[in-house]
């Protein structure tokens, strides 16, 4: 089911959680609502679900206006950050709940329910837990049961509120992969909320970046990373070095290679992997010293110190493959020449 949000606004008292948000999500996508905490992403998700009503604007699901419709009639599946499993029911009864509360005419037989629940338990690979209570499960297991419970009613939209937020790092990684696979299998339109840009980039086919109740940018992960629409997106997605032209000596940047022509803005944002370094004797560049470096697995993050800068711009980060760094044969305190391959300009 496609989702269309028209001019949604929502205030909590004097706090504007969402301001004139319009968003279109085509059927079958796996979308991440990404933003810092308090940006309104969870509120937006709850408005789509019907757990919250917008002050202004309309919510259209499959082209039908559902703004006034109660959550129980919207045909959505909602997965909560803290699972919200029914503590007094077994895993089996939790998953069967959505089928058992259907009106008598639509309610399937117990035999059908049992079959359905077991097939869902197999889908989430937890078939042996059917008789346990939620309190007896680990966080990752609970989250998968919560997902199975939401899927039991065959929702046309799956909404997940920080689904991996309360889990530890390794479980989170596994579940991300697993959610991607599940989405490819089921093709149900899914939206998940996250404040973790890595998670959004890794899992989603579409990322919507929110900030202070507004949408900053919407697009494919690669699009957003390579062509950030504004300074906020550039800063929020991935690491970036920021050069303020009003503070930075422009001829330094010229020598570094990004000011060949006239500047296209006041701030230059440079990704760490767009900075290349060589030993200072070899090439003509600005004299910068190597301060330190860290291993990040396949890449090395190099910390550079630029004495010509004041304040925030004094430390630069560059990233390069391990082999490249070894070839450079650098030591702490060495002078290096910086070459900037690409920059995004913002005002």
């Amino acid at each position, binding site marked *: 089911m496609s989702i269309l949000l028209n001019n949604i606004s929502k205030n909590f008292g004097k706090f504007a959680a969402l301001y004139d948000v319009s968003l279109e999500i085509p059927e079958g996508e796996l979308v991440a609502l990404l933003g810092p905490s308090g940006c309104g992403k969870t509120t937006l998700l709850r408005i789509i679900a019907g757990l919250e009503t917008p002050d202004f604007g309309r919510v259209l699901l499959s082209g039908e206006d559902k703004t006034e419709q109660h959550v129980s009639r919207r045909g959505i599946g*909602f997965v909560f950050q803290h699972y*919200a499993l029914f*503590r*007094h*029911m077994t895993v089996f009864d939790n998953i069967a709940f959505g089928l058992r509360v259907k009106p008598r005419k639509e309610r399937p037989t117990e035999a059908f329910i049992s079959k359905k629940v077991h097939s869902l338990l197999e889908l989430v690979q937890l078939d042996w837990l059917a008789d346990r209570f939620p309190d007896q499960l680990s966080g990752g297991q609970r989250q998968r049961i919560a997902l199975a419970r*939401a899927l039991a009613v065959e929702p046309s939209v799956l909404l997940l509120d920080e689904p991996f937020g309360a889990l530890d790092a390794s479980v989170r990684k596994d579940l991300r992969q697993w959610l991607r696979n599940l989405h490819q299998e089921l093709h149900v339109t899914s939206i998940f909320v996250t404040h973790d840009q890595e998670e959004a980039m890794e899992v989603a086919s579409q990322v919507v970046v929110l900030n202070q109740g507004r949408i900053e940018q919407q697009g494919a992960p690669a699009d957003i990373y390579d062509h950030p629409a504004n300074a906020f997106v550039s800063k929020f997605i991935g690491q970036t070095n920021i050069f303020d032209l009003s503070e930075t000596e422009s001829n330094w940047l010229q020598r570094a290679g990004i000011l060949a022509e006239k500047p296209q803005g006041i701030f230059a944002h440079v990704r760490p992997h767009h900075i290349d370094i060589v030993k200072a004797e070899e090439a003509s560049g600005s004299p910068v010293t190597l301060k330190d470096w860290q291993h990040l697995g396949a890449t090395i993050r190099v910390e550079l110190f630029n004495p010509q800068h004041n304040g925030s711009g004094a430390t630069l980060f560059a990233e390069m493959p391990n082999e490249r760094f070894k070839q450079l044969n650098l030591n702490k305190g060495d002078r290096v020449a910086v070459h900037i391959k690409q920059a995004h300009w913002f005002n």
Partner: protein
Amino acid sequence: MTQSNIMPGFRPALAYTLFYLCLVVLIPLSTLVFKSLQLSWTDYLEIISNTRVVSSFRVSFGTSLIAALVAGLFGFVIAWVLVRYPFPGKRFLDALIDLPFALPTAVAGVILATIFQPSGLLGKWLMSSFGVQVAYKPLGIVVALIFIGIPFVVRTVEPVLQEFDTTMEEAASSLGATRLQVFTQVIFPNIFPALLTGVSLAFARGVGEYGSVIFIAGNLPYVSEIVPLLIITKLEQYQYAGATAIALTMLLVSFLLLLIVNLLQLWARRRSGQI
């Protein structure tokens, strides 16, 4: 070999618990048993099978049970309102709930008798519009016991309701459950063990209640005479053995009933996955 426990001080804690139990509960209660042992078995049976005694048992346990159930219903609603809805004067109302705990029960009894007697404020109205007389009837006992019992229910249900995870309700709604289904299948099963505790406390208190009841009950033998009153009457007539026999029987019945409630509670909590 003793296993070391994470919590230190098991022995002194157990010793203290047993000491307290002996001093405050077991010694007085065993005195009761010993005293009634002075009676022969036939005397004992004769005393407790006396129709006046049997009627008073029926009155005491019957009214306590009805009152506890009504207090359970009202108390639950009050706790629900106090937890779920913001409204002006909420703190004041919340403080008011505990009043029956603090008020001398005799005072409560006099007040209730005054307003519910046929010429009283509420009594007159009930009499003229429904033809119901509350005071000096078993119904009066029920009213007094409801008054006494409600705070027990409110104070046991309230914290559980407060801690109830409301996202469970949202989850149930999102799965298509109606408001009624959310309440009966999600909220109520989670609150039920606490409600049962509150009701059994109200019941136990009701069985032993004396002060607030005697003023409103009318104390008519066979009709509205409660067991505690009968015991006092016996004591006043220096029939100590008779009084202890009735008291012991009451103790045993109460103990049995509370045991059943505890088992019921265990079952409810196990069923709701809380243990």
